[in-house]
Each structure stands twice: as C-alpha cells, then as structure tokens.
C-alpha cells in the first residue's frame, strides 16, 4: 500500500479531508515527514494550516484519508488516540497554560498523571526543562504573573516534559508582542538543532528560511507546494505561492 510508512517516516498523511459542515477545510492533503525533520507550514489565514496540524493529534477529527503517526494509525480507537497524543507535544497560539497551577505544576502534571512518574523525579525534569528554556526562576509563579514570551516558553517546556517524539507548533508567536517573539523562536531553533521532529505553522519567514528543512505552502485547504527554503524563496513554482510571498516579504 502506498500509505505504508517507511522506517524513518514518522508522520504519514494521505489524502486527508476535513469538513466543517458544508465547508471543506482540508482537500486531499498528503504529507510525509521524516524523523528529525523540521517542516514549516505557511499560507494565508483560513487556508487550513492549523486545522491540518490539529488533525495530527486528533484535536480535530479528519473525515477521509489516513494519518499514521509513528506507526500508529489514527482511528476512532481511544487507545490509539491517547498513545499518539502522549508522543506528540503541541504548543498553541494562546499558550493554554493552566492558570490555577504554578509553572512547575503545569509542567509536572502530565508526567505524574499520564506517565506515572514520581513527583520529585518529575520536578527535577521540569526544572531542567525550565533551565533549557531560560526561566528557572519563574517555577513557583502562576502563569498570569508571566509575560507572553515567558508563558509560551513554559508551554514548550510543558510539552517537552512528556518526552514527545514530535512537536506541533500552532502559530506559537502570533499572540506575542514583537519584542518577545525572538525569545520563543530561539528556544524553538535550539529544539530543532537537538533533532526534534517539528511541524510549525507560522508567519515568521525568517525562522522558516533559517530552520526549516522543508516548507509547505497551503491555500484554500490544499497543499499547493512543498520544497526546501531555498526553492521557496528563490524559485517558487506556483502563482499563488509567489503572490503570497510577495505580499508578506
């Protein structure tokens, strides 16, 4: 079968379709992502970028086509869904930290509850992750006491605490003030350099050019063009891609 994953293909999407009522948000989207690859998805708003990556951990349900994550087919089976979710971290535009828990509790909750990790062990991991994203001193504060950039870095640490194989980023810098975007992008770039498989929906073209292995351009629910950053920024094929790039660059 064509949708069978090869050994190092960690995400396989084949002809994925998704409707919201009568509106078709995704039209036969196919994408294969290698382990350790960084794929950036760009496109105008409403083009289905977010919907696409939200299908990969089943925050949205796709209605046709196949999605296989790390060899696990994404079906209605709750066990498969939970297994895929525990191997897939996600970072949201609005951070979605838990406001009633401290930063440390935000990070340790899932490892303790889902992975059944011991509390002190989970806290040690959380502190080393906070060190990695550069804000160990904020461990005992509540999310509401942090700046947007700090909150997003906590959100990244929270996802990493589950030791995911894949990280999904859904416009991670779009809700941030301009001066805070860089601190989040730096963390993401460092994460990419450690070999994490990443799918990133973003409007940050600098990041895409520098960090992405491949760029995916989506428009109207379709994947229009896939290629290396070099290909994209010098030699885009599609008219719609050229138009989009000319508008934002």
């Amino acid at each position, binding site marked *: 079968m064509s949708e069978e994953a090869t050994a190092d293909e960690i995400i396989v999407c084949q002809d994925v379709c998704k409707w919201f009522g009568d509106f078709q948000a995704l039209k036969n989207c196919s994408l294969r992502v290698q382990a350790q690859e960084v794929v950036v998805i760009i496109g105008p708003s409403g083009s289905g970028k977010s919907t696409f990556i939200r299908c990969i*951990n*089943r*925050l949205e349900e796709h209605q046709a086509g196949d999605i296989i994550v790390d060899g696990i087919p994404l079906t209605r089976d709750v066990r498969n869904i*939970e297994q895929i*979710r*525990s191997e*897939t*971290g*996600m970072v*949201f535009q*609005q951070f*979605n*930290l*838990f*406001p*009633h828990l*401290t930063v440390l509790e935000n990070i340790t*909750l*899932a490892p303790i*509850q*889902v992975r059944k990790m011991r509390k002190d062990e989970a806290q040690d991991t959380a502190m080393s992750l906070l060190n990695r994203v550069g804000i160990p001193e904020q461990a005992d*504060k*509540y*999310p*509401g*006491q942090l700046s947007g950039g700090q909150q997003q870095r906590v959100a990244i640490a*929270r*996802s990493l605490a*589950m030791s995911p194989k894949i990280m999904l980023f859904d416009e991670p810098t779009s809700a941030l003030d301009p001066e805070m975007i860089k601190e989040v992008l730096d963390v993401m770039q460092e994460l990419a350099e450690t070999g994490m498989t990443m799918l990133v929906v973003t409007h940050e073209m600098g990041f895409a050019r520098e960090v992405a292995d491949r760029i995916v351009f989506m428009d109207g629910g379709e994947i229009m063009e896939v290629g290396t950053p070099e290909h994209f920024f010098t030699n885009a094929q599609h008219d719609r891609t050229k138009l989009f790039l000319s508008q934002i660059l």
Partner: protein
Amino acid sequence: MTSAADANSDRSVLPITERYTLIGWVRRNLFSDTLNSLLTLAALAFLFIVASNLLRWAFVTAEWGVIPANFNLIMRGQYPATEAWRLWLVIYLLGAVVGSSWRLLSGKFSGAARLLIAIPFVLMLIPFFSMATRLNLVITAAASAAGFFITGYLPIQRRGRTAAYLLLAYLVVMLILLQGVGAEEGPMPPVAPILWGGLLLSLLLAFFGITLSFPLGVALALGRQSKLPAIRVMSVIYIEFIRGVPLISLLFMGQVMLQLFLPDGFPLVDRVLRALVAITLFSAAYTAENVRGGLQSISRGQYEAANALGLSTYQSTIHIILPQALRAVIPVLVGQFISLFKDTTLVALVGIFDLLGIARTILANPDWLGTQQEVYAIIAVLFWIFSYSMSYASRRLEQRLGVGQR
C-alpha cells in the same frame, strides 16, 4: 470609581484647615447645598424615628424572659437534657477539629484564628448562661487552642488530605454521639432524630444538605455535558424536574410518598431523614446548574491543552476543568448554600422542630402568648449570624484561592 477619584482630587485643592477636619467633611458631604442639606435632615429624622422606636421596643417593651426560659429548646429541641453532655462533647470536638485543621491548612495563628478562639468567650457574656454553660464554653475554647498547638508538633506530611480525613472522622463520631449506641439503659442510649431540634437540627440539616448535595450536583453538571446521550438526558430530566417544583412540595412528597418507592421495611423511616433527602435532591439540581455555569466559563483551549498532553477525560476533569470551574462559581454556590440554610425552615411545615418549628411550639405555649416579636427576632438574629459567617468565610476563601488568577 470616578467619583472617588474626583473626591480625592477635590480634597487636594481645599484649604488646609478644611481638608481633614470633621466639620469640613460634614460640610462637604452632607450640607454642600440646600437640597443636600434638606435630604440630610430628612434622613436624620427618619433614622431617629426608626432607631428610637426600635430601641424603646428592645429595652423597654420587649419581654426577653421568653428566651432564657426556652433557651434549651431553641438550641437543641427535645433532645433529652440527661444526654446534653453528648452535644457538648460534639462541640468540644468541633473546636478541636477546627483548631487542628487551621494549623494544617493555614499554619499561622493569625487574626482570624484569634477571632475563632474568642467566639466562646464572647458567648460567655450572654447574661443568663449558667456556670456550667460557661465552663463548657471555656473547655471548647481550650479544645480548639489545644487542637491548634498539638497539631503543630505532629510530623504530618499531606496536610490537606489529613484535614479532610479529620473532618470525615469527625462527622462519623458526631453522628454516633448524636444518635447514640447500645441499649436504652446503656451509657449512650439512642436518641431518634425526630427529637433533635432547634438550632442543632437547623445546622445539621443545612450542613448535611450542603455536603451531600454538592457532589451530587457536580456529578449532574458533568452528566449534563456528557457525550453519552443516556447520561445527558437523565441529568437534564432530573435537573429540570426538580427545578420546576417548589421545595415545600418535595418535602411533602418526601413525607408521604417516599415509602412508595422504597422496599418494605427500608430503614429510611425517620421523618427528619426524609426531609434531609428532599433538601439534598432539591439543592443538587441548583448546584448542578451553578456548576454548569462554571464549566461553560472554561475556554476550549484548556480542554485542548489537556487532551494534547495525553490526559484522559477523567484526569483533565479532576485536575484542570473542575478546579477552575468551581473556583469561578464560589460566590454563586455560597449564595445558594446560604439560601439552602434558610430554606431548611420549611421543614417546620411538615412537622419537624427546627428553629422555626420550635419557635411555633414556644408561641403555642399559653405561658408565652404574645411574645412573637421577641422569639422571631432572636431566630432572625441566629440565622443572620450563621449566614453572615458563611458569606464572610467564602470571601476569605476567594481571596486565598484567587492567587495568580487571570
């Protein structure tokens, strides 16, 4: 907000002699122009008439003798006097448990803790109390202080959990003490709940009504949001049915119809217990709707973040959704619990002697004809004290839990 700011800015431009003096304040706020002066005088006259009549009634006309004469009845109904020591034991233990949990949950001997220990001493000022009562109050204060300080020396790890277990154990011990065990001639003969009365019964009905209806209401609220149609429909039917009938009709149904639904010889024969069931079922439906309001205030992002981390539905409900939803509805829930406490007076209409029922028996006694004003005033004061304490406690709880809120 703006008016306060205006007043502040005004104050800074006033001549220095008028800024902080009482006369200056009065002139500015009460007599700033003719209309204000007239309004001030009219309000003063009205207050004077009301206050003088009230004070004349309270200190001259009123026959307060009815209260000391029936004090035991108001406090504990027909609970036998020979067994009153059990009630005092329940109160001592309450003092000890409150002191101990205070140490566990707050850790500090703060102003509020002093206030709590001061309550028994304030009660001692009530003029007609006997020496025995005063001694009992001192023991209660000592028990709460002892609970606080002894707990400080115990090596306890999980403080919140210990406090919860302590409370649970207290409830069991309290019920055993009130109900009694063993034979009629034994040291603790059984006292049927129908003999419990007065303030004791009102507080018990409210307390158990609240603690039993709360989990039921939360479960119903979650059930109403369930993806399983059977659970959702059953929750909706239950909530809408209960909310559609008055509490008094449920109380009557509890008295006359409950046995139709129960097997013969089912132990739920006591009328007080039947009333408690009716109150609990009634309150649960309202709790469910209030909690649902809190659930709806949780943004979709919270559910998504919990899902994306791999938390199961149960885990995200317990750790993410409910803590935030309940926190958001504390003021509404406390308001509902206060009204439940006051609604317990309706049990007087089905022949149960709570505070209001006791008031009616006192007034039916020929010795105390014409003392309605005094008796009802005292009942109102008692209800006010407990309702206000609940509302005060809820405000403190909100402040404590409000840390780091958005």
